[in-house]
């Protein structure tokens, strides 16, 4: 039906319109089919084969999936990814929320502060990671200089957590994960912008009502602000989870220094996608890598499903 036109002319035009629409969308559709859909479908098949890329795939049934169960490196990578995901997502959500609340205040240079928070997300990850390797240098890095000047380095030293000059961020396995999370937090700008938009969407009358009821800032935040933006928080948790399970560039560049194992000291940053990449392209086991990719996809889907399930209790759905 030609909705909105209603007449017979519109009805007659419908097939042409559809054809024209499809024709215009065809470059994307063809690209999607060729470069996304087909490889995805092929990777399902490859996951049941021994496929060293050069030679033709050989059917091995469930062998690749069975191998995952006894692959120590797989379990190590999965564990490290989960630890990183938990820390980085918690850190990102908390910091983004705090920054969004601050940036939502009507202060001078508000636009400048908003731009300053968003700006790091525009820097390519490889470039920023290289800069971070210098910032985190234990001897000449800016981070340890700041820790030294503020006395925090001494505090860490006294507590026995780091040497006198500050942590060995990239060489001490105890600090390597902290370094990864720290660098991740540097790029929270996008989440902050989303939270900021959500905060500005909270009806002002709710705050007025809260003020009339005598609520302080903390109670207003937990009883009004947080419930109202909770759908957005849930959305960001889902996207951050997917992102955390796919992280690759950051540990690849940050721990690329010679003399360290892949993924850094004690392979702290040897994440799932890192191992998947190695398996496929370095060890030439594309079949096994495909199986890993599908396990990863299922894990992310399960986690997303779990987030939705949990959200039924904690996420406030607005009915306006």
């Amino acid at each position, binding site marked *: 039906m030609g909705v909105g036109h209603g*007449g017979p*002319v519109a009805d007659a035009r419908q097939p*042409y319109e559809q054809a*024209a629409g499809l*024709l*215009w969308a*065809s*470059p994307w559709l063809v690209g999607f089919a060729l470069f996304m859909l087909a490889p995805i479908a092929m990777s399902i098949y490859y996951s049941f084969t*021994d496929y*060293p*890329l*050069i*030679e033709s795939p*050989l059917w*091995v049934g469930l062998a690749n999936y069975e191998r995952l169960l006894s692959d*120590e490196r797989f379990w190590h990578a999965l564990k490290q990814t989960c630890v990183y995901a938990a820390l980085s997502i918690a850190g990102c959500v908390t910091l983004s929320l705090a920054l969004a609340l601050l940036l939502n205040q009507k202060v001078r240079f508000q636009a400048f502060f908003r731009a300053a928070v968003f700006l790091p997300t525009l820097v390519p990850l490889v470039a920023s990671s290289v800069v971070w390797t210098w910032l985190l*240098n*234990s*001897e*000449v890095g800016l981070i340890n200089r700041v820790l030294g000047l503020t006395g925090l380095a001494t505090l860490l030293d006294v507590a026995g957590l780091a*040497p*006198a*000059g500050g942590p*060995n*961020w*990239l*060489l*001490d*396995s105890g600090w390597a994960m902290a370094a990864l999370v720290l660098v991740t937090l540097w790029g929270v700008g996008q989440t902050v912008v989303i939270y900021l938009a959500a905060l500005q969407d909270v009806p002002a009358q709710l705050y007025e009502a809260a003020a009339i009821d005598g609520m302080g800032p903390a109670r207003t935040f937990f009883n009004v602000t947080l419930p109202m933006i909770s759908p957005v928080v849930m959305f960001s948790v889902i996207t951050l989870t997917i992102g955390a399970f796919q992280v690759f560039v950051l540990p690849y560049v940050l721990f690329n*220094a*010679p*003399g*360290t*194992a*892949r993924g850094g*000291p*004690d*392979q702290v940053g040897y994440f799932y996608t890192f191992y998947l990449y*190695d398996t496929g*392209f*370095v*060890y*030439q086991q594309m079949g096994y890598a495909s199986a890993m990719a599908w396990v990863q996809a299922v894990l992310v889907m399960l986690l997303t499903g779990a987030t939705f399930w949990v959200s039924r209790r904690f996420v406030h759905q607005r009915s306006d």
Partner: protein
Amino acid sequence: MSHEPHHDSLTRREAMSRVGVGALGVGALGFAFFGPRGRKETSGRLVLDYWEKWTGEEGAAMQRVVDAFNNSQSRILVRYFATAGIDQKTLVAIAGRSPPDVVGLWAYNVPAFAESGAIVPLDELGEPLGVRLENYALGMRPIMTHGRHQASEGENAGSQKTRMWATINTGGTLALYFNRGAFREVGLDPDRPPRTISELDAFHRKLVRREGDKGPLTRAGFLHREPGWWSWIWGYHFGGSLFDASTETCSIDDPRNVQAFEWVQSYSRELGLGELERFRGGFGTYASPLNAFLAGKVAMIVQGPWLANILRDYAPGLDYGVAPFPVADGLWQEQAPIGAIDTDVLVIPSGVRHPEASMEFIAFTQRQEQVEMLSLAHCKSSPLATSSEDFFARHANRGVRVHDALAKSERSFLCPRTRTWPFIKDTLDATMDRVSNLRGEPAEILRDVQRICQRAVDRGVDERIRRQRGRGIA
């Protein structure tokens, strides 16, 4: 109806759009099917694509060799392409049946590429052009060959036939580089570098400098992880090895390897792990003035001849010496030094349309004058059995004769010749970390690594057998 005129104009626009899209579509299809293929046979010359990993000065030097070849004849034109991640891209290109005509890989790639049929053997192709194994230094020859399992070709199931798969255009061997100034400063003779591990340890202790008596480290005598590119070599200097290619068996937990890793760990214990990490954390990257050896923070390191390029650029005044890397007591022989060989190779991918032309180019690069020109520019030793006196005289590395001797030594060694090597190497890198970071006793750690690596090798063997059976070959 008020919208009728609008409707008419829309129809015209739609018609125009469809014509436009159609034209674009036809153009795109035409481009896809009949567009350039990156391989043109122009002016009667056959165009070959050569992928190589070198950029900058090293790439420019190779380009000069390519230019010399192009000017030497009028039938073939070689195009040089500097390519990052060359082994992986080559694999994908071969799998996609659009390989380059010649590729510069790393020595460790040869077994995996040869076993999977990704490269072609060069014996027959090279013979008429004078490219023979005996042209090369003794230590270099095993890099060029590999015993490919013949079962896949239907001959003598399970047996191996050793063939030549690669040539070498610059030689790389690893030696001990030492700071002669630091030696003099602590009363060591700069003309008498350490020969044994015990001597190396003693020299190291003398060369260690701290702020005050027990303050932070300011200089180490020797550090295994500076630069840390070769975590697999230590056992060989104790008389051990990692792999027996004939039986496809790992020997990572061999007592001599255990002894080597105990030696590695002793440095962390002696200097203090936390202090060592802090000290290493301040090292700069290899090609910079903050390089630990150039900056005087480490007095002895293991490195290749190419270090002289960096020394020339960033520390031209540094007085350095070069010697074969020390070995365990009783293993030292002046005439047969022990050292790792780590170099680049040239191969012809499977599926190229003109393998003879590719070989002709490779043969040109293997001429002594070309090899020496390239080796001088790259600051490497020559992989050939003989080198001119002019080559040694003009070489920027004062220790080039040491590297030459290592290349010719029958006791020099290569990384294990197995397609599982990338996995084993990564595992050994992690092992180096575990051992150095005092995560356990070396014997225990190496037992664990042996189990993991042998399982990976066995899996590779199983896959090969399964593949052979799949082809109906018993």
